[in-house]
């Protein structure tokens, strides 16, 4: 005991340094974990505050989960979240690695820099802005797409109420926003590859294509694995802004735009089903947690240095 206090005293400056951050983590990360027990309660708001609300709500066991999984909602939001994320991960990986290799091969480096700056722009914009951008193309009476359809004599499409187009629209918008950024990251690591590898390959008569396949891609694989691992770990989490702002919260599109995060939000703000939404959030956290652990374990087996922990 005495030893413990002596150690605390010895480390007091460092402890003061972590203290503000640790308090933050306590309130914004660890206390909400305690709050997840609401998923097992019939939530009733109490004026007396956080603890009173939790304590006075009645235990209902697994009822919230049973209700959640007895509706179609659970299936739809899980399917949407997973399928969209898989599409984003696969297409994003292929296109951004391809774009990075392409940029690295351009002869004129100044032009390459200009292209890169252009591609980077969408990363810096908020989903609200991107939502407006999408609207300028998709608006029923004024949008550019319907005008183009008009030139060909086709009827205008009600983009914001026809759900069949949205899987494509959402994938395109997401790739548009993400590719520039991730290709710049891959490009940075391509530029870090030892040039003598390529020189040796060329002396042996390797073509450009062979160099890409045998040198560039293998040298990129650690960062590809890490980026993909991070993405797979978050496959149960959807980008709220993309699914909320770009479809303009249009109700007729929910079957293809509702993901776990938007479902939880609507439970909190519009439908008021707090217990069930918290249950959906907890379901997301637990499956997400398992996925991070499993994917990290797999990577660890393959390549110890690329694992996150």
């Amino acid at each position, binding site marked *: 005991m005495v030893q413990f206090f002596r150690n605390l005293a010895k480390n007091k400056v460092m402890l003061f340094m972590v203290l503000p951050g640790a308090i933050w983590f306590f309130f914004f990360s660890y206390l*909400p974990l305690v*709050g997840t027990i609401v998923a097992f309660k019939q939530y009733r708001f109490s004026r007396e505050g956080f603890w009173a609300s939790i304590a006075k709500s009645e235990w209902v066991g697994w009822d919230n989960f049973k209700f959640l999984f007895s509706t179609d909602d659970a299936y739809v939001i899980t399917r949407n979240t997973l399928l969209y994320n898989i599409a984003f991960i696969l297409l994003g990986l292929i296109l951004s690695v391809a774009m990075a290799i392409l940029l690295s091969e351009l002869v004129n480096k100044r032009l390459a820099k200009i292209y890169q700056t252009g591609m*980077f722009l969408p990363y810096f914009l908020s989903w609200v802005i991107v939502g407006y*951008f999408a609207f*300028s193309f998709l608006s029923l009476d004024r949008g550019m797409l319907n005008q183009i359809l008009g030139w060909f004599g086709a009827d205008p499409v009600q983009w914001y109420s026809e759900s069949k187009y949205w899987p494509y629209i959402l994938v395109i918008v997401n790739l548009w926003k993400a590719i520039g950024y991730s290709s710049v990251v891959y490009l940075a690591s391509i530029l870090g590859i030892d040039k003598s590898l390529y020189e040796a390959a060329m002396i042996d008569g390797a073509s450009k294509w062979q160099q890409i396949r045998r040198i560039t891609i293998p040298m990129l694989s650690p960062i590809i694995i890490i980026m993909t691992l991070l993405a797979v770990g978050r496959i149960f989490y959807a980008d709220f802004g993309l699914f909320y702002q770009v479809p303009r919260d249009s109700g007729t599109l929910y079957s293809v735009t509702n993901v776990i995060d938007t479902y939880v939000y609507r439970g909190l703000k519009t439908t008021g089903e707090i217990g069930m939404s918290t249950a959906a959030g907890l379901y997301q956290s637990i499956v997400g947690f398992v996925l991070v652990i499993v994917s990290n374990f797999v990577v660890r087996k393959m390549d110890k240095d690329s694992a996150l922990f």
Partner: protein
Amino acid sequence: MAEVIRKKRDFHHISRGWNWVLNLIAAVFAFLCVFPFLFVVIISLTDEKTLARDGYRLIPAKWSLEAYRFIFQTGDTLLRSYGVTLLVTVLGTLISLILISLYAYAISRKSFRYRRFFAIFAILTMLFNGGMIPTYMVVTQLLSLKDTIWAMILPLAMNAFYIMILRTFYSTSVPDAIIESGKIDGAGDFYIFLKIVLPLSLPGLATIGLFSTLGYWNDWFNALLYIENPNLVPLQSMLMRIESSIQFIQQNSANSSLSMTALQSIPQDTARMAMVVLATLPIVFAYPFFQRYFVQGLTVGAVKE
């Protein structure tokens, strides 16, 4: 010399034809990334009546600055939102830099006895979180931050990922020997941190600071959850609100012709797009100068200790 350069080029580079093709692909994609912004700029500069007749055109029949004039005449909402966003961004970035740099430094020091505990304390938050609703309850009921600017600042102030980036940065760019020599000269831990470590890790701090600035500038989610007071609405969130309030007016004015005519005199569509332009412009001008820090942040973050 010229001879050598040409030789090097033959040795390294792709053929001229391929170079053209690749340039074209890259140029087209880069253009597509910038195009929607240019399009919105054009829409905002279109005459409102022309817009109602022709829709959004790349080359409008009639240009007009009316939207911008309208915004600057009735501009207190925009100005106030700009003010809120600026305040939140500056305060938030400062606070998160202080919290993150202190925490990351402590867990990067081998002499700190509890470094492992606090490192894991941070990393665990990356793996598991309580989710939106429990966080909402803590912020509104326990901390009573609803309708205060702190509700937009505190939830974004810390992030375990940034702590890991900065910790890696400290351990690679601040040699132990310098810190040890500082200790021998009798400097305290805090003094060493302020006078030796911080100046040496400015590029790392700049990276985290810029990520954080961007995060605060672009945040609308916390405002959506916690802000109802119209005087505290930040820029991004105001853009969401004008959209729904104009929709609301339109829906309710369908019955009465009087408000319809009143509505027509407002350059609503162009004004909305002009606000989008005004909210985006600072970013468009600033990001080319800062982009290397964002690349650096990710590449440093990808390298483990």
